[in-house]
């Protein structure tokens, strides 16, 4: 009888230990963070450098500018007119993003591109990609104070939105990013699941 009680006692303690271990590691296990059992810094860094090719392309940088004006074109020049971010990332007064940008590309050369919910990050969370090194961008993407309060899984979710996917169907004579979408997502997830180490 006492053996059974001991076994039961040990089982409860063991279960509790497992529970608290899971609780302590929290999202990091699910997000493949730095405490992930699959940590491989070299693999993570190489994967991020691949996805950085997309993050640093005009299709991403143009809507993640350092200033308060969106950028346009392959050379990332300031957006025509005095279009700006505005108080909520959706433009200013009569020049809201949605005044011109529809939920899909407008037909015709030089017509506005479009995707659902066309907007910039808000001014209090600019999530700037412009002129960021791979190391700087990597650190920023991991930091919830700088990435819109997201964990890495939620950052990955953002990559699946219509707005991000638009980059691979940009319309007109705009260039797609240098990786195919599936390659880009795979490289990002590899980085995340390998421990999300940042390049030196």
């Amino acid at each position, binding site marked *: 009888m006492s053996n059974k009680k001991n076994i039961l006692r040990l089982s409860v303690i063991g279960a509790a230990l497992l529970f608290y271990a899971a609780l302590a590691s929290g999202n990091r296990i699910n997000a493949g963070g730095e405490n992930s059992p699959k940590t491989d810094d070299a693999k993570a860094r190489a994967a991020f450098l691949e996805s950085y090719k997309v993050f640093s392309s005009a299709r991403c940088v143009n809507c993640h500018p350092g200033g308060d004006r969106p950028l346009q074109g392959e050379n990332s020049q300031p957006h*025509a*007119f*005095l*279009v*700006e971010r505005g108080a909520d990332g959706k433009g*200013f*007064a*009569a*020049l*809201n993003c*949605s*005044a*011109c940008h*529809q*939920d899909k590309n*407008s037909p*015709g050369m*030089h*017509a*506005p591109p479009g995707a659902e919910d066309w907007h910039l990050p808000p001014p209090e969370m600019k999530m700037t990609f412009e002129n960021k090194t791979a190391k700087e961008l990597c650190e920023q993407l991991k930091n919830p104070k700088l990435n819109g309060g997201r964990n890495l899984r939620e950052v990955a979710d953002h990559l699946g939105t219509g707005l991000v996917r638009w980059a691979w169907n940009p319309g007109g004579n705009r260039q797609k990013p240098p990786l195919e979408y599936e390659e880009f997502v795979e490289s990002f997830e590899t980085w995340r699941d390998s421990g999300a180490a940042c390049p030196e």
Partner: protein
Amino acid sequence: MKKINLTVNEKAVSIETDEEKPLLWFLREDLNLTGTKYGCGIAQCGACTVHLDGSAVRSCVTPVVRADGKKVTTIEGLSKNASHPVQRAWLAEQVAQCGYCQPGQIMSAINLLAKIPHPTDAEIDRAMSGNLCRCGTYVRIRKAVHRAAAAIDEREKK
């Protein structure tokens, strides 16, 4: 083809049309509201500006299906006799030269004043920068916006 149901200048409209037809042409051709102008067709000049549920949009690139179930206001819908404060200000300042861009200018100005009742010169320039005027009436447009802001203010005090 799709049946589009919307309100245009306070009147209910229900017409079967190509849902991708630009709102501009729907207004001009289907409803004979020719006050809204075609300038470029690629949202680069602002001549086609109308209001969609109160927000300024460029009707030359807005498919009519986006207006389904919504409220559209064109230059014709502002007043019956050019009595809207912004229209009055435009007349008082003699803004128009050829006049082609002015319906779009006025619609953008109204949207600006709805969001910023007392804009500075810099705010006017920023908000109206997407409405081009080949005649160069920008200085008078700025004056007219200030005049309209004061008139609206005065009207609301009464």
